[in-house]
């Protein structure tokens, strides 16, 4: 007699998860160990979000969770239920690319492109965080009211969670600055 090998969906180590991604709600059954990154890529087919280190150290898997950037490799899918997730597939407005995407294209903010979805999601959030007055480790005076421009030094610090192994950093900084409406020139000093 054939045994029913179907996975037990009422197992305490699996969950029925409802994920709200790029404006659509998806329902899936997943092992509780499934990260948001793996759920996006393997179960929802949203492969724009990339797996780099899988340990929160490279930023390739960056998505927006309730508008805030986060690494999806350390976020359990089951714990992401109830949040609004935006991946690189949801950054553009239909056929109209996001200004950050336009700037990366125009200024060659990449070489191989593997880190680019994470870089773009992160940059979208960086511009928002700066607009909200959030300081960074590059901000000389963190006291309220002493906010500084989103210059090259601030962009490097705020984007430091996104590694690019091709080393396209110079163009990435320019692209983020252009998208933020604060273009930096080729003469901008490199980090000491």
């Amino acid at each position, binding site marked *: 007699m054939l045994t029913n090998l179907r996975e037990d969906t009422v197992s305490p180590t699996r969950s029925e998860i409802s994920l709200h991604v790029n404006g659509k709600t998806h329902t899936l059954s997943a092992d509780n*160990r499934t990260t948001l990154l793996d759920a996006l890529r393997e179960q929802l087919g949203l492969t724009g979000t990339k797996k780099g280190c899988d340990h929160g150290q490279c930023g390739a898997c960056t998505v927006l969770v309730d508008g805030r*950037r986060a690494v999806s490799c*350390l976020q359990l899918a089951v714990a992401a239920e109830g949040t609004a997730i935006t991946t690189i597939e949801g950054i553009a407005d239909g056929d109209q690319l996001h200004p950050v995407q336009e700037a990366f294209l125009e200024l060659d903010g990449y070489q191989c492109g593997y880190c680019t979805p994470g870089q773009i999601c992160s940059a979208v959030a960086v511009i928002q965080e700066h607009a909200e*007055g959030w300081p960074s480790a590059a901000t000389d005076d963190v006291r309220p009211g002493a906010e500084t421009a989103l210059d090259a030094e601030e962009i490097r610090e705020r984007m430091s969670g996104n590694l690019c192994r091709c080393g396209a950093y110079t163009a990435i900084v320019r692209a983020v600055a252009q998208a933020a409406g604060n273009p930096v020139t080729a003469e901008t000093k490199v980090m000491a």
Partner: protein
Amino acid sequence: MKEFSYSRATGVREAVSLLASDSGARFLAGGTNLVDLMKAGVETPDQLIDVRGLPLGRIELRGDGALVIGATVTNSDLAAHPEVRLRYPALAQAVLAGASGQLRNMATVGGNLLQRTRCGYFADIASPCNKREPGSGCSAITGENHNHAILGWSEHCVATHPSDMVVPLAAFDAVISYETVDGPGEMPLAEFYPEVGDTPQQETTLPAGALITSVTLPAAPVAARSRYRKVRERASYAFATGSIAAALGVDNGVVREARIAFGAVASRPWRAHAAERALIGAPATAEAFGAAADAELAAAKPLAHNGYKVPLLHNLVVAVLTELAEEAAR
């Protein structure tokens, strides 16, 4: 990763009761450290109790001037908060010096206090480690230890506490509040992290099954002029090789009040009491700052690869206190 069940706590009492009913259960907040260690097989909970939804996400200025920071406040929200930036700038700077923007959006204050060491041997389940497996030995004490402790270590463990946030919390006399099945409790941060001794696996003195609910910073006018400086092996996004949080009160060129704590030099944030004592009543000069640093670092016992940390901390003390004194003179 070991399989686990998952539930969301809707109240603080419910969360601690759930934990008390399962010795293999752990609280999950941001998950930036716990999930990573679960992937490595270092942490093997059989149940995760998600506490992110608990009503512990606020920062409130109390009538007596103390700042109460909820345990599920994210690092990002802590560093961006106007009262933190105004009253304890070193705390905002410390939080901003840690991790990346993505991780700071996820990580919480409670989790930050409970971060595990970044000692490579602790994270490698193939290596002996007394913290991970009591009695198995310490690989770092005779191994690669350039990132390890110079103060307060024991022959059982030389790991450091990785948090930047706890360094200013130590300098500013933070108090940790928690809840257990028997009710609420609190303790000063100075008692929260015990000495390593022969129990490096005992990383805090929190009662078993306790949930951290908030961190309170007593009013400290001196902290309004404070700084955090971190030295690391790359310009950003790395753990400290040495760090300092300091505040200085100066009257007519004489030090009236000093708060100093070191990071990345011990198993806990290292409050530099000897340096503080040496400074009170001393002239606010580089010479006096250097002498105060030496008073603290006299107890340092560097390992084979981390002798550099002694002059590093000495120079951090002199540099940061000099800046604070110059700021006070303006």
